[in-house]
C-alpha cells in the first residue's frame, strides 16, 4: 500500500520534472544557423574525444589492475607506494595533474604531444579510481573461497586466475562502468593543454559565434552517445557473468 503510493509519487515527481526541463530547453529560441560553420569542428572534436577516451579506458584498466596487484602483493613497499599513489591522485584536482603532467613532467623528458600526454594523465587518474574498485571486488570474495582453493591445492596464482578474478569481474562491472563514463567526461579538461577535443571545440564555436546554447547543446548528445553504450555493455556483461541465479 505505502509502496504503491511511494511509487506513484516518485513517478509523478520525475515525470513532471522531466517534462518541465524538456519544455524549457525545447522552447528556447535557438539560432542554429550561427554555429553552422562549426559543425565540422564539433564532429572532429567528438572523434578526438572518442579516441582519447577509448585508449585511456584500456590503459586505465591496465594501470588499475597493476595498482591493485601492487596493493595486494603482500609486500610492504609496493603496498605503501600504490596506496600513496592512489590517495594522492584521487585527492588532487585532475586539472592540476594535467598541467603538471604536460608542462613540467612531459616537458622534462622532451615529450610534446599534448594528445599523448593527455591520454597518459587521464589513464593514470582513472586507473587510481579503478584500482580501488578492483581491490574492493577482490576483497569481497569470501575467505571460504580461498580456503577451498587452498585445500584443492591451487597455488596463489591459480586461485586468482580460476576462483577470485572470475567472481570479482562480475562484482566490479557496475562501478567500473560508472568510472568509464566519468573518464569520458573528464577528458574535456584536456582543453587546458589545447587538445582539440569535443568540449574545446564547443568552447571555440561559442567564442566565435556567441551562440552559447547552440554550441554546448550538441555536447549532451555527443557525450551521451559515448557513455550510454558503456552502460549497455556493462549490463550485458553482468547478465552474462551472472551465476547467483
Amino acid at each position, binding site marked *: 500500500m505505502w509502496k504503491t503510493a511511494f511509487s506513484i509519487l516518485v513517478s509523478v515527481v520525475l515525470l513532471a520534472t522531466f517534462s518541465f526541463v524538456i519544455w524549457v530547453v525545447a522552447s528556447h529560441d535557438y539560432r542554429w544557423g550561427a554555429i553552422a560553420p562549426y559543425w565540422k569542428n564539433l564532429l572532429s572534436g567528438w572523434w578526438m574525444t572518442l579516441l582519447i577516451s577509448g585508449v585511456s579506458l584500456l590503459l586505465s584498466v591496465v594501470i588499475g589492475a597493476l595498482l591493485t596487484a601492487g596493493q595486494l602483493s603482500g609486500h610492504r613497499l609496493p603496498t605503501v607506494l600504490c596506496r600513496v599513489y592512489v590517495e594522492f591522485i584521487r585527492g588532487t584536482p585532475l586539472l592540476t595533474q594535467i598541467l603538471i603532467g604536460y608542462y613540467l613532467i612531459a616537458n622534462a623528458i622532451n615529450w610534446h604531444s599534448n594528445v599523448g600526454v593527455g591520454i597518459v594523465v587521464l589513464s593514470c587518474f582513472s586507473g587510481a579510481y579503478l584500482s580501488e574498485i578492483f581491490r574492493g571486488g577482490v576483497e569481497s570474495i569470501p575467505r*571460504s*573461497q580461498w*580456503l*577451498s582453493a*587452498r*585445500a*584443492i*591445492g*591451487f*597455488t596463489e596464482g*591459480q586461485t586468482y586466475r*580460476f*576462483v577470485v578474478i*572470475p*567472481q570479482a569481474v*562480475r562484482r566490479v562491472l557496475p562501478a567500473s562502468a560508472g568510472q568509464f563514463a566519468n573518464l569520458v567526461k573528464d577528458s574535456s579538461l584536456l582543453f587546458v593543454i589545447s587538445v582539440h577535443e569535443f568540449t574545446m571545440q564547443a568552447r571555440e564555436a561559442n567564442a566565435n559565434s556567441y551562440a552559447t546554447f547552440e554550441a554546448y547543446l550538441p555536447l549532451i548528445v555527443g557525450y551521451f552517445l559515448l557513455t550510454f553504450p558503456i552502460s549497455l555493455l556493462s549490463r550485458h556483461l553482468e547478465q552474462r*557473468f551472472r*551465476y*547467483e*541465479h
Partner: protein
Amino acid sequence: MSIEIRGLTKHYDTTRAIDGVSLDLADEVRVLALIGPSGGGKSTFLRLLGGLEVPTAGTIQIDGNFLPQDEDLLRDHRRRNGFLFQSFNLFPHLTALENIVLPLVEVQGRKRDEALARAHEVVARFGMADHLTKRPAELSGGQQQRIALARAMAHEPAFLLLDEPTSALDPEMKAEVLDLIEELCHAGQRIVLSTHEMGFARGSSDAVVFLAGGKVIESGPAEEIFGEPKSETVRAFFGKVMKW
C-alpha cells in the same frame, strides 16, 4: 593410516586452538572421528592434518613421513588429500561439473577428456549425474555437499578430511550425505572427520578422539569411548548431546 603426533600446538594471536596434542594411531585405523564441543579444536586439528595450517609447534607424522612446513611441499600434501568443509565451499561461478573437472586438470594434471570421464564417474557414484550443468546456487545444500564430496574424491585422495560435513544440512540431507560417507568408509577410504553426529561417529569410525580446550581429553576405539568414557568431561558432553 599410522599417525604420530608430538606436542602439536597452534596459536592464533592469544587463543590456543590446539594446545600440546600428542597422539598415536595404529595402521589399522582407517576412519578416525574427532568429537567434542564446538571451539574445542576439531577444525584446527583437521586443518593441521590436511596441511591447511602450519603448526606453531610440534610435529605430525603420517605413514612415517613428517608433514613439511614449507608451503610448496605442503601444497603437494594438500594435493594428495581431499578436504570437505561444513559450508560446501564450491565455486559459485562454475557448474557442478566444472567444479570437479577444474582441479583435476589444473592441479592433478589430467587431460581434459580424461578428467571429464572421471568426473562423470564420481558424480554418478554420488547420485548427482542429473545436476552436472547446474551452478551451486541452483542446488540444495545436500546436493552441493555431494558435489563437494565428489570433488574431494575425484583424484582418489590418500586421506579424505571432512570438517563437520553435515552440520549445515537439515536432517534429511544429513542422512543422504552420511550414507555416502559411510559407503566410502566401507569401501576402505581413509577418512578423518570432525562431527557432531555421535551415532555416526560410534557406528562408522575405528577410532575416536575427543578434543576440548585444544587438548585431547580421551582417545581410543569408538566402542571404548562411547561405551565407558573415563573422563568426566566426556561423560558430561555425552550426557548433554545425547539427552535429546
